[in-house]
């Protein structure tokens, strides 16, 4: 149907979702979309993204405390450090385009902490994935599920955002999530 309607390149994903062995996302198409109105200016987008990263950072810190297995504790610690880097990148991007250049503390005061990255709350994630906190594989798998969910959210939001510069920022963050997902995959393979 698409090819006959002027679509230049159409590919059929053989086997559909059943053949898809990488991480999937869940939820309806509007899941987490309420975090964005669609009217955000570039600075607003960065604030929301920062809050989502903060949610995930908090989540990993809580999980680090809850985990009893030493290796798993370390892993959650490492994952939380990665989120700090994400946040730093977002804060730097904010200062690059803001006239005010707030300090990190001032910036954090402006940011309202919302849901986790990916648009689900901590409890929803734990209930959903029910990770075995003694298993490194389970922990990385959980992190990959969250990254997949985040990638999914940013890509869905991208089509809703009206300001082209804001949309570019969202797309850039989505591409970074994709890279994070790939690096977690490598980490999983290395176990």
């Amino acid at each position, binding site marked *: *149907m*698409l*090819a*006959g*309607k*002027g*679509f*230049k*390149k*159409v*590919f*059929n*994903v*053989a*086997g*559909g*979702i059943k*053949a*898809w*062995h*990488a*991480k*999937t*996302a*869940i*939820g*309806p*198409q509007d899941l987490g979309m309420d975090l964005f109105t669609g009217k955000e200016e570039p600075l607003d987008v960065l604030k929301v993204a920062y809050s989502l990263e903060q949610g995930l950072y908090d989540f990993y810190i809580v999980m680090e405390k809850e985990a009893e297995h030493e290796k798993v504790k370390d892993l959650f610690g490492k994952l939380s450090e990665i989120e700090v880097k994400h946040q730093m990148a977002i804060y730097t991007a904010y200062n690059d385009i803001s006239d005010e250049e707030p300090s990190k503390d001032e910036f954090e005061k402006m940011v309202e902490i919302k849901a986790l990255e990916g648009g689900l709350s901590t409890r929803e994630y734990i209930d959903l994935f029910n990770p075995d906190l003694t298993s490194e594989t389970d922990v990385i798998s959980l992190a990959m599920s969250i990254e*997949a*969910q985040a*990638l*999914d959210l*940013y*890509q*869905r939001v*991208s*089509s809703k955002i009206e300001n082209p510069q804001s*949309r570019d920022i969202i*797309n850039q963050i*989505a*591409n970074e999530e*994709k890279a994070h*997902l*790939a690096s977690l995959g490598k980490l999983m393979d290395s176990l």
Partner: protein
Amino acid sequence: MKWMQFLTPAKSLDFDETNAYISQHPGDKITILDVRQPSEYQESHIPGATLIPLPQLSDRLDELDPEKPTLVY
């Protein structure tokens, strides 16, 4: 009669090829199109996929960019 619309000249990509294609292209440069029902999408979908159930597809084609490579499942 535009016969092209009745044929399916779409190339098939297996899992590895699809995964590689998605990894190599920024998300805003391609469309991943899920044509299943909303309940199926809700249960599990490829991250970033746009949902347009097959029965609605012909009426909603204007929501998609024909210039972008489109991966359909």
